[in-house]
């Protein structure tokens, strides 16, 4: 465990000693602020998100979380794309492999680091919730469950991003693979659900990450969602370890 924490600290310091974490945080907050305070409107795509925080609107962060669930499918892989692929590219992976740490510890350490960064980003959205508290009467249960959902969702996204990062030495490719996987398990499956007969669509919908997240975002706790997020995170971490392991004998 200690080794995992040390590895995580190393990763975190890499994040924070470089401008990367700050740039990501700033862009993330800018995106959140845009959705929260101004809304998004793309007329030619007939796409419109009304500002979450406006006079007369419901005092809740739910619409923000719902949009972020899709948005993070792009942001998180960009956050995690360098985690392992950078080690491959720079050759530091060899040092890491010869160090007295297991592959699992490496993966968990990197996962933990990304998770901490993600939690910090999420914490930064607290100011928006504070606004809702000051100018409205939010439902604390919904808000709490929404944040729990966001944490679980983040864990899945990071594990998928990490897995993508173990597949290639090219950061960008890793990022794209991560986005592709997450896009499939979110928007892709949504489109599949629309295309297939309703008898099967319910089964497919259960594999969709957003289906499970939606429960949390509306303030509903369901063990199915919890189990789904935990097992999927564990699964991707496991196969990440296996992919990393395979480098030893490939």
């Amino acid at each position, binding site marked *: 465990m200690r080794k995992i924490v040390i590895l995580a600290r190393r990763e975190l310091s890499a994040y924070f000693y470089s401008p990367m974490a700050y740039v990501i945080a700033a862009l993330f907050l800018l995106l959140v602020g845009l959705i929260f305070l101004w809304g998004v409107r793309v007329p030619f795509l007939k796409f419109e998100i009304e500002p979450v925080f406006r006079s007369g*609107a419901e005092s809740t962060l739910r619409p923000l979380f719902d949009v972020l669930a899709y948005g993070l499918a792009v942001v998180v892989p960009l956050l995690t794309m360098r985690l392992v692929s950078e080690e491959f590219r720079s050759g530091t992976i060899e040092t890491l492999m010869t160090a007295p740490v297991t592959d699992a510890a490496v993966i968990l350490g990197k996962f933990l680091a990304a998770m901490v960064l993600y939690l910090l980003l999420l914490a930064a959205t607290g100011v928006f919730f504070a606004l809702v508290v000051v100018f409205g009467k939010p439902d604390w249960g919904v808000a709490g469950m929404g944040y729990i959902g966001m944490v679980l969702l983040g864990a899945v996204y990071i594990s998928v991003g990490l897995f993508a990062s173990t597949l290639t030495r090219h950061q960008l490719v890793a990022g794209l693979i991560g986005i592709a996987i997450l896009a499939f398990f979110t928007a892709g499956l949504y489109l599949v659900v629309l295309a297939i007969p*309703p008898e099967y669509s319910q089964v497919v919908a259960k594999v969709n990450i957003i*289906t499970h997240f939606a429960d949390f975002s509306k303030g509903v*706790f369901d*063990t199915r969602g919890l189990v789904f997020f935990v097992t999927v995170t564990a699964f991707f971490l496991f196969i990440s370890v296996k992919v990393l392991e395979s480098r030893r004998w490939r």
Partner: protein
Amino acid sequence: MAVKKKNTDSDPSGPKKTRERDIRSSRRAAGVSVAIAIVAATALLIVINVISDKKNYRCDVETLGRYRLSDAAARILDQMDQPIRLTSIYTSTESDRKPQDYLPRVRDLMAEIARRKDNIIVVNVTSDREKAEVHARLRKNLDEAASGHRKVIMDFQILAGIQGPQFEQLTRQWQAYSSKGWLVQFAMPKLAEAAMTAGRDDLRTTSMELRQKLADASLPDYPGMVRHLSETLKKLRDSLENLSVGLRQLASLPKEASKSRPELIEAADKVIVAISRASEKLGKKDTPVPADPSAALKEFITSVRAVTGSAESAARRLEKFAGNGFAPYARSWRTVRGTLPDRYRRLAYIATGMAEQARGIQLAAKVEFQKKHIPQIRDGMLKFDAEARRIRSAVEKLLKDLTDLDEPTKEIFAQAGKDDYLQAILKPLNDLLARAAGAGPLDEQKELIQKIKQDNVVLVEIGSRTGVVGFDEVWPLASRPEMGRIGDKAKKPKRVFYGDMAICTRILSLASDPFAEVVLTYFEQIPPQYLQRRQPTIVGSIYSGWLQTVRERLERANLKISEWNIAKQDSPPKPTDNIRQVLLILPPPEPSPMPPMPGMKIPQWSPDEVEKVRKVIAGGTPAVFLAGYVFPRYTRGIPLPGYYGFSEYLRIDWKLDVKTSLRVIQAKADPLNPGEFKLPIHTWRHMRLSTFTDHPVGRPLKARRMYLFNACPIVKASGKAGSPTGTAPARNEPNVEVKDILIVPKHRNEMWAISDIEAFIIKVKKRKPLEPDRKEIGGDLLGPFAVAVEASRKIKGKQARIIVLAAADSFTDYYLQDTVMLFREDGTIDPEPPPTGNVDLLINSVYHLIGKGEYIGAGPAIIEPVEIAPKTMVVVKILFGLAWPGLMFAIGGAVVLLRKR
């Protein structure tokens, strides 16, 4: 996995191969083990998730419970064992009904419903293509259910194809009829030709319209189409039958004319003879005047009176001959001077006049005077005789015209005399009409056909039955103009989600037997149309036919509807299938101040009628009374309080003083003059009031938009005589328990009940400031008071319960189907959908009274919105939208700088 290095020093080539083989084999082993591990992990992932899917724990931490199914909805779903299919079709392009705003909640709900029951399949339709697919499936089901209707429609098309040419042929036949033919005098050829042409055109037009409807509508209104073709067929049948009957009657006319000829001519001759006899009494023209003019005049008077009699008799004979037949339609019957009987009557009238004139002359004392006037009477008699002879000629002409048949007409009559004339056309037409009548109204699909054209609907399919839950049911309007003032132009009316109960009650009504029977109770006396001029129509302030919306909604809430007209029946109809009954009592009519005409027995509202209702309620049947403000009656300019037939009953038996002479109004405080108010004009008709108590009937409606019209207050009867609306004190009934449902609370000082409507209207018209009249006696009534209450008590050991809703006009069709017009402060009008939510108050009342309170939905939650001033919003945007991310950038920049140093 570490790969150990092998010793290769002894044989460089052999061991190399061995090493490579070893490496390959160990790689293969490692690869296989990784693959197995990944497969095992995947299997484990699936197994764990499947198990967790089967045995899950779910709880809603949301305080308001908006995202979970209400207990009532869950209860309904738990009863359902049959397969149910729910399809949301949200494809509206209207800006205030955008699917992206309203569909997510519906989807959440439907997913929740599907999670609760495995037998419920949920389908979400968002594109036009999917919508078309659903319509195609429904069309298939509908086509199966309406196979009888379709056959009728198809047969009609065939019939139209066959009979069109037949009508054309008949038209040609009539066109070919000679212009001098016998039937022309009755205009029959033209009439027949017009009937045939109209028949052909009607068939063609209806056929085309039906074809168009079948092609256009995704779900054709088959019953409507059958109704349409039936109307065409009926019209055609009536027209053909009239023609057939007419020809048969005409065919017998020549014979009748021949038969009647002698007596008609004899009657005409008698008139001429009578005139000549009378003329003889005064002598011929240009002969000397009789020596005794008085005696001659006397005889003349007697004779001329005989002329009157004979002329009258001739008129009667002609009329008798005409009877109900076609003779009066003959051209010869009508002359320039009128019809033949009329001319005889005029003759009789003139004869009477002449007799009177002669009598006057005879009574004159002077002989000279009598002699002077006799020549004038002689002249008159000559004209008189000439007219009698002209009429006789006209009668003769008529008889000649009627008997003088031509050959083509004889042929037509020969055909018309047979029963099978036009039967070739009429028989298939009648057969089809009979089959169309047997096709039925297709009740199970009625709603589907009518509502499927709407956007944003949820389809509920259970077996062959399909229900449609409309947008306004799932998303009714909120209890107040969300986001502030009505004058706020940019804001749309806020809607609240009521989907779970709207959908689940629809499921319930499609799958279960009715919970109870709502007996629409009223006092109405509507005479048949032919008597309506002589007998008054007696109806209360709400005619029972004005409650179609209420009836429809009650039926959809799984309630059956029956009727009890107190004017005709002493007790309500027996309940079908022994289900519970609830009386829904409409305001009774005011007793007529005028006594009925002699010999006319008209039922009047009386204490006897109240007794009938009292007896039923005492027997344990609950009742909902619809009362409301009643405009004052004016007797000699003095206003008397409006009459409500159950006032005394409610006061005496239920300790409820329904003040129907006071009208609740909703003014608006004048910010410049504290204590003074203005009346926003729309509140006169649409008074927004949703201040429900926690009573189970009203609680779910707290967040719902509720508009009331002509509401009156209900207060507990004081027990003292002489209160404003009546005189009877409340009976001392300690066991009456009264609970408020909807109230005007004390703090709503902009609402009160006015007593003098006339003075109030004058003030409003003159734009004078309004304030309550605080006189102790006869003044206005200030809050708190109720507008809806429940009262219960025990009568002979039985629990009796009633609910009084004192805004009866708010439940009529003309109110529930009317767009709400809100006048903005800038003078523009803001239309809102009709206040259909009112009916939920009625449905909840019925559910509560029949003990099905568990099916009353929890109602939408009241959500506190964000309230922020525009200026503050700008600051917030700068601080949190720009400065906050900017701070992150700044920290990043600082870190980079520090690192560089």
